[in-house]
């Protein structure tokens, strides 16, 4: 338990004055499987859902992730890194399942080449993003998700996916370009409709 003082002047009219007991549930001595689930299940599920694209598969992945995590809880030395640790379990599990079912085929239905000079100043709407993701082949979608969820470098993604770094760079670039074009098109369509 930590004490955090915010402000400090009780008489100040516009000043916030309170004492906060900072309860760190993931403190190394207190980290339990249950607290790990409570704190991280939403983030883990969201990542799993984006990877698996289905509610039931995402739930399976989430459950498997926590079962593995609970068994390996001792491996987590820094509780502050719990989320990235769990994300790496989700990712490895997902990739393992994909390899087993041989679903992840490189080179199926390529997205267009990188379109340059697409504006970055476009709204990002969840629904539109979902549509854009849905039209992206898995070989492009997965590196994109590792990039956005885990903030992995292209080299780290290459290692995780066991593909050359150059391939990851090119897929990432094309996947990001695909998103922007799709989001930009959606915005154009919206503007045209309103006009």
């Amino acid at each position, binding site marked *: 338990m*930590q004490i955090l*003082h*915010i*402000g*400090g*002047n009780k008489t100040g009219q*516009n*000043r*916030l*004055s*309170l*004492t*906060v007991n*900072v*309860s*760190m549930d993931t*403190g190394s001595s207190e980290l339990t*499987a*249950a607290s790990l*689930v*409570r*704190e991280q*299940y*939403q983030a883990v*599920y*969201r990542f799993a*859902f*984006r990877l698996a694209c289905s*509610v039931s598969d995402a*739930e*399976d992945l*989430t*459950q*498997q992730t*926590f*079962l*593995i995590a*609970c*068994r390996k809880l001792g491996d987590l030395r820094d509780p*502050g*890194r719990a989320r990235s640790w769990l994300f790496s379990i989700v990712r490895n599990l997902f990739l393992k399942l994909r390899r*087993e079912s041989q679903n992840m085929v490189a080179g199926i239905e390529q997205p267009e080449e990188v379109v*340059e*000079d697409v504006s*970055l100043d*476009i709204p*990002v*709407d*969840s629904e539109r*993003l979902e549509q854009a993701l849905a039209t992206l082949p898995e070989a492009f979608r997965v590196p994109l*998700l590792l*990039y*956005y*969820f885990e*903030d992995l*470098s*292209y080299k780290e993604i290459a290692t995780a996916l066991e593909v050359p770094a150059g391939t990851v760079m090119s897929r*990432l*670039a094309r996947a*990001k370009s695909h998103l922007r074009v799709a989001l930009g098109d959606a915005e154009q369509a919206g503007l045209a409709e309103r006009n």
Partner: protein
Amino acid sequence: MTSCSELRAKWDVLCSTELDSVAEDCSHLRACSECQQWLQQLRHFDSKVSAALADVPIPEGLEARLLAAIESESAAAAPVVESPRRRSFTGLRVLLTLSAAILLGLVWWLSVPDNSPVTFEFAELQTRLQQDYSQVAAVEALPVATDLDCATVEGELRRLRLHDPRGLQLDSVAGSDAAAYAFRYKQWSGVVIAIPTHRLQNGPSSTAPVSGSRQRSFAWQSRDQQWAYVCYVNSGPAEGFMRSVFGSMV
């Protein structure tokens, strides 16, 4: 000499830590205001995509099912064969899971006080902060892995990362939750804390940041009065940071 567009194509696939190095070391970037602007837009766009990707509804009862699953796993106290599909679980295991879920649900229901903690949704708050202060996106995209160095925040909180907020339990109002975000932006570092206003007994009354003390803390509430924000500026000129990030409010 490498052109702006070639450089941008390279930067586009870099992760945030790599982009931080670019921001620090690239001589072209220092000299080219268009690329500076592009990079800022890139970070803003990527941050919006990250937030939108995290916008996924959580299935009802998932937490209880997960807790039940790990409970039954530890109760079984036997090595579990990794199953690729939940539907391959045996009938007994499903039954155990279900009974544990019902039991846990009941215990939870009985134990929840009226002032149960607010579940803090990072995506929701992130979107919210970005709506109120567009510059926040730029802050979020900047180095976050650096250890927090805030004199008033100790221990675990030093490991806060901006995109990994931690819940704070407020002592003054039992069972309240808040979220803290460490930041590092240009020469500044510190913590931003967001608290639902209704959880505070004496929240800030102003909608503009007002400096709290020589600790360089600023407190204010959102225009709709739903949120109270507290910002500690630990290093760098505090007013400059507030103007830069929460500019319209100062």
